[in-house]
């Protein structure tokens, strides 16, 4: 019952990109703050801060989550995947096929939304290895990009799926 006395501070144990971490954090810390400020994993970006834009998307136990709305205490005992760990999930290569395809098809310009796009796309391909344009549009419908106009992103995801199925 000790943590009830100092309830503003919590001990958590979790995994980020395969690495086990235990640390003490304040109760009001969000997951994106934990990642960027405490762990210096600055690949995950924060856009709107209210769960709408999709920039801060990470995977918690393989499910897409908006890390700006998730309290960091909630990842206790869970596994988080951020953009920094994406390549390692695929045959320990330097880049994940999604990353190479986004580069080939120019699926980004400024790059701010890209980590969220890639993580969401990975979640999609995990569930649906051969998605149609419609599937991709639906799954990525709440990842907002103000540069590309989306077509190149959809082509990139399709090409990555093809590479991974080959």
């Amino acid at each position, binding site marked *: 019952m000790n943590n*009830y006395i100092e309830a503003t501070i919590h001990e958590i144990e979790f995994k980020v990109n395969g690495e086990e971490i235990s640390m003490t954090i304040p109760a009001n810390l969000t997951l994106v703050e934990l990642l960027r400020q405490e762990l210096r994993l600055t690949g995950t970006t924060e856009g709107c801060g209210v769960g709408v834009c999709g920039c801060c998307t990470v995977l918690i136990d393989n499910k897409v*989550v908006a890390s700006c709305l998730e309290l960091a205490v909630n990842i206790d005992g869970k596994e988080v995947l951020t953009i920094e760990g994406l390549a390692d999930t695929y045959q320990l290569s330097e880049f994940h096929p999604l990353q190479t395809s986004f580069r080939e098809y120019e699926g980004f310009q400024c790059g701010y939304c890209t980590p969220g796009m890639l993580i969401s796309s990975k979640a999609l391909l995990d569930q649906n290895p051969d998605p149609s344009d419609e599937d991709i549009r639906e*799954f990525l419908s709440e990842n907002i990009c103000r540069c590309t106009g989306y077509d190149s992103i959809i082509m990139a995801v399709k090409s990555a799926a093809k590479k991974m199925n080959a």
Partner: protein
Amino acid sequence: MLPFKLFLPESFEEAIQLMKEHSAKPISGGTAVTTLIKERIFQPTAIVNLRKLERDHSYIREMDGEIQIGALTTLRTIETSEIVKRDLPVVADCISKIASIRIRNVATIGGNLAHADPDLDLPPVLAGLDAHIDIIGEEGERSKNIKEFIQGYYETDLKEGELIKSIRIPVSSDRKGIYLKHRALSEADWPCVGVAAFMDNSPGSIPEVFINSVADTPIMRIEGIEEIFSDGITSELIDKVGELASEQCDPIGDSRGSVWYKRKMAGEFTIRALREVTGVGESLI
């Protein structure tokens, strides 16, 4: 976010005790409340985080003629459940229209209903299905029909120290329902207006219509449908019910539309939903 104390109970009893001891507010998935805390609309000093109750209270069970859903079940779990898709397709469809997958992966049905935002998608559908909310508090458990549970603008029947334990939804293959969500901004936005229409298969039955986003609660029932359809249902009479919907609603103008526009849309989507459930007139969706 401003600092606050946060407690992580593992049972409803413990949660209720902590809420009382620390005058703390409960938070479940937190997708709505965290936003309010960030914007400093809500400035809690203590929060009871119900996330650890997920272990025991995230479930979908088939009971006698109804489906019971634990309060900590995420919207995504419900939407993708084979049981829900088979027996309550209108619920699965409605949930698939709420926000985005990454929000539905975290937001829970208990938190969603306790929030009682007038723009919520689920309440009009649950009203049409006559769902019941099971409530747990210090003095024991009680149950309330969803229509009486949500009482007004962000107001529910929950008393201080009470929590939603589960939701029970009757299953009836004789009742047909549809939820139409009109979004004025983006795909994952709150509704500009959402219309749920339900009707029994039996001869002579009269449809019911519930609308969100155009009143101070998410369950605005259109009154007077019985009189209009007393001698049968025709598409002219459905248009009349549409007019009734426009008249009876009381929207506020915002970025999703002016008062005039929302009234118009409430009528239009009532007509579309009624044409679907009654099978009268050409489909407009």
